[in-house]
């Protein structure tokens, strides 16, 4: 079943070397770089205590992960607590894309057929994909362990560094297995990417719920309102989630190996089921058969805007549902904040003394709305970039051989992205409100969600500019978004982060309502600049080659 494995495997490595190199370097340098930054970011005990106080509440644990080793806190533990999950998330995303690229995408494009006509075993492709994923994940694990050890920050240990690295690598490997499984079920690459992403989102939500339960119990016991000492992490929901399980290693403190082992076994189970399914089905087919399509183009397929909408419809609906669910899960965290504040005299007094009885809720609301806004930027950018994807696959040639204008078509993709920037926030705003009805008003939910739309308009503009004027550099758009994630989400935990770093991201200009007062001016400027960039991109696309 795996005839010609070594030849085929060598070929896979050759195909994937460049892309994988970038992913691995990105992940490894990111974790090493952040580790090295800790002593600089937190120069004294005061800074460390300040951050631990921010992190030591159940809602923050739900978002950022559990705390441990508080009595022996050092830079290595702090680093592992705050970064392991995010690096693992990146590794999972790398694995999802990698596995689909070498399995279902090849089949869908028909490349696999010519390989299958050679003396290659029916399972060679599937086994090669999973072996390659394993090798790359181990490489990530080992390289990040070495790099972290090289930083020489306080509290490092060899065992801790390897348990940290392998937890990340094995979480990635689990998602390789899950992806290979879904690549057998669905016959299109987009479905084989979408479903593991949904599982990844669910893992984050499950872990958040489980870790929050643990933290709430800890807070009840400590009666100070904040997590002051180590607590039991026993909630089953976190164990169900690969992201939750990965955090149980308690790197640089207890250095447990069993979560790594369980993750590895989980990955093998998924991969095993996937290979069994793979051996039993026809090439090109999925277990869920593609439905018989329409025989005629519907009303959408009559003009460029309808055509663009038809292409983006699935992702529009999928992201809408995803954001609704994320909104609902954060809504449940939010209502937990209020019961937790109401039930705790100590913290109520503290908050009253600081002037606002609801500041904790509001601070949390600011945190999630900016987080959700940055997540919303992803589908917007993808909508604009779809033009480029279609183009580079040679599929726009036929479209442009008809009476279709370039401005009309790129403008249509941009228009849909702008529409999404206004509509998608409503989904998570409503999701948030539907669960947290008692804690927050509908008006606040919608306002805090929609206030970031101008920052997203700016991102749409930037994307259109790249697609229109610099099509080869389209993917660079992810850099400013990645920077924003880092500086807005992590940076706001860091007391002495220079203010200008916030201002290098469009999200840094948005007034943080309801904590800060509302200002219309920065929003108008962001929207205006966004629209200008859209126009510039549309002018650019008229002048360049298509293809």
């Amino acid at each position, binding site marked *: 079943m795996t*005839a*010609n494995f070594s*030849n*085929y495997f060598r*070929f896979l490595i*050759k*195909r994937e070397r*460049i892309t994988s190199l970038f992913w691995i370097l990105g992940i490894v340098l990111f974790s090493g770089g952040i580790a090295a930054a800790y002593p600089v970011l937190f120069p004294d005990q005061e800074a460390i205590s300040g951050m631990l106080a921010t992190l030591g509440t159940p809602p923050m644990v739900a978002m950022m992960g559990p705390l441990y080793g508080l009595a022996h806190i050092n830079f290595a533990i702090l680093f592992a607590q705050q970064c392991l999950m995010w690096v693992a998330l990146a590794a999972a995303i790398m694995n999802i894309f990698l596995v689909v690229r070498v399995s279902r995408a090849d089949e869908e*494009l*028909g*490349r696999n*057929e*010519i*390989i*299958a*006509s*050679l*003396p*290659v*075993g*029916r399972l060679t492709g599937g086994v090669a994909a999973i072996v390659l994923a394993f090798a790359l994940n181990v490489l990530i694990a080992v390289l990040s362990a070495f790099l972290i050890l090289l930083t020489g920050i306080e509290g490092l240990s060899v065992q801790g560094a390897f348990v940290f690295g392998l937890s990340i690598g094995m979480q990635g490997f689990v998602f390789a297995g899950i992806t290979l499984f879904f690549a057998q079920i669905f016959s299109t690459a987009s479905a084989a990417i979408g479903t593991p992403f949904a599982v990844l989102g669910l893992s984050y939500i499950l872990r958040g719920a489980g870790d929050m339960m643990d933290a709430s119990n800890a807070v009840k016991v400590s009666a100070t309102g904040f997590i002051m000492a180590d607590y039991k992490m026993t909630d089953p929901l976190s164990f169900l989630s690969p992201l939750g399980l990965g955090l149980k290693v308690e790197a640089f403190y207890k250095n447990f190996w069993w979560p790594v082992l369980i993750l590895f076994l989980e990955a093998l189970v998924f991969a095993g089921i996937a290979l069994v399914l793979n051996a039993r089905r*026809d*090439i*090109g*087919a999925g277990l869920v*058969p593609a439905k018989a399509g329409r025989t005629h183009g519907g009303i959408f397929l009559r003009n460029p805007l309808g055509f663009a909408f038809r292409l983006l419809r699935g992702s529009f609906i999928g992201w809408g549902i995803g954001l609704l669910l994320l909104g609902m899960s954060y809504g449940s965290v939010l209502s937990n904040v209020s019961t937790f504040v109401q039930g705790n005299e100590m913290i109520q007094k503290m908050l009253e003394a600081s002037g606002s009885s609801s500041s904790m809720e509001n601070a949390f609301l600011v945190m999630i709305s900016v987080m959700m806004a940055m997540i919303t930027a992803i589908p917007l950018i993808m909508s604009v970039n779809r033009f480029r994807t279609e183009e580079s696959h040679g599929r726009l040639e036929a479209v442009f051989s008809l009476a279709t204008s370039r401005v009309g078509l790129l403008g249509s993709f941009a228009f849909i992205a702008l529409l999404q920037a206004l509509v998608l926030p409503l989904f998570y705003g409503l999701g948030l409100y539907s669960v947290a009805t008692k804690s927050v008003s509908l008006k606040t939910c919608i306002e805090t969600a929609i206030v970031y739309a101008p920052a997203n308009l700016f991102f749409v503009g930037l994307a259109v500019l790249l697609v229109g004027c610099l099509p080869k550099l389209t993917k660079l758009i992810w850099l400013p978004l990645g920077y924003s994630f880092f500086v807005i989400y992590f940076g706001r935990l860091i007391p002495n982060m220079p203010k200008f770093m916030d201002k290098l991201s469009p999200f840094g200009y948005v007034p943080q309502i309801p904590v800060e007062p509302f200002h219309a001016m920065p929003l108008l400027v962001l929207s205006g600049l966004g629209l200008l960039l859209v126009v510039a991109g549309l002018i650019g696309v008229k002048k360049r080659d298509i293809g």
Partner: protein
Amino acid sequence: MAVIEIKNLEKSFGKYKALNGVDLSVKEGEVRAFLGPNGAGKSTTIRCILGILKASGGEVSLFGQNAFSNAVELHKRLAYVPGDVNLWNNLTGGEVIDLFLSLRGGVPDEKAREEYLQKFELDPSKKCRTYSKGNRQKVALVAAFASNADLFLFDEPTSGLDPLLEKVFQDSVKELAAKNKSVFLSSHIMSEVEKLADSVSIIKEGKIILNGSMKDIAKKGTTLEELFLSEYEGSGEA
């Protein structure tokens, strides 16, 4: 012994029956053409021959062995050129040819590779993303002709080639025939088939409606095109 032997082959996709009793055979040294309009089941038949699809009923054997269960071994003796060749953007044509040759097993014949690269005027140093449809097809053709396979499967192999290169293709197939290799050629180009084929099979709605030799057809005094059209139009009226 027949090189390809298909008996009462059926293939369903869910409720849709793509093949409904296909019978045909290709003898050693024979060049058999495979005709039929789009959607009649030509590519499905070829994919069953390749063991890429599993037959729902009937039998497909190559060199006397089951095409599905012995696919790997059989593919060492087989070369296939699809009509729509999709390749990897970041590999060059030369890399892909070597990949195909080495995956088939044995030592690649460097001389044959060079010879066919020149015949088909293909620049192997270019990345596949820069190739046109015709050039992608040439990659697959060179990889096929430069092999020492015994059976050649072509699925509309010249749909992207210019007339000069079509001539090169025809000459190359004639050389194969002279070396007693077997060829199964699906095509829409009647003149090409008349020049190359010894025999022809015509498929309609998943069933073979005619298996015959070119000589017999010539004796009837009709051209292949007239025969093809009469088979289709005639039954359309009935």
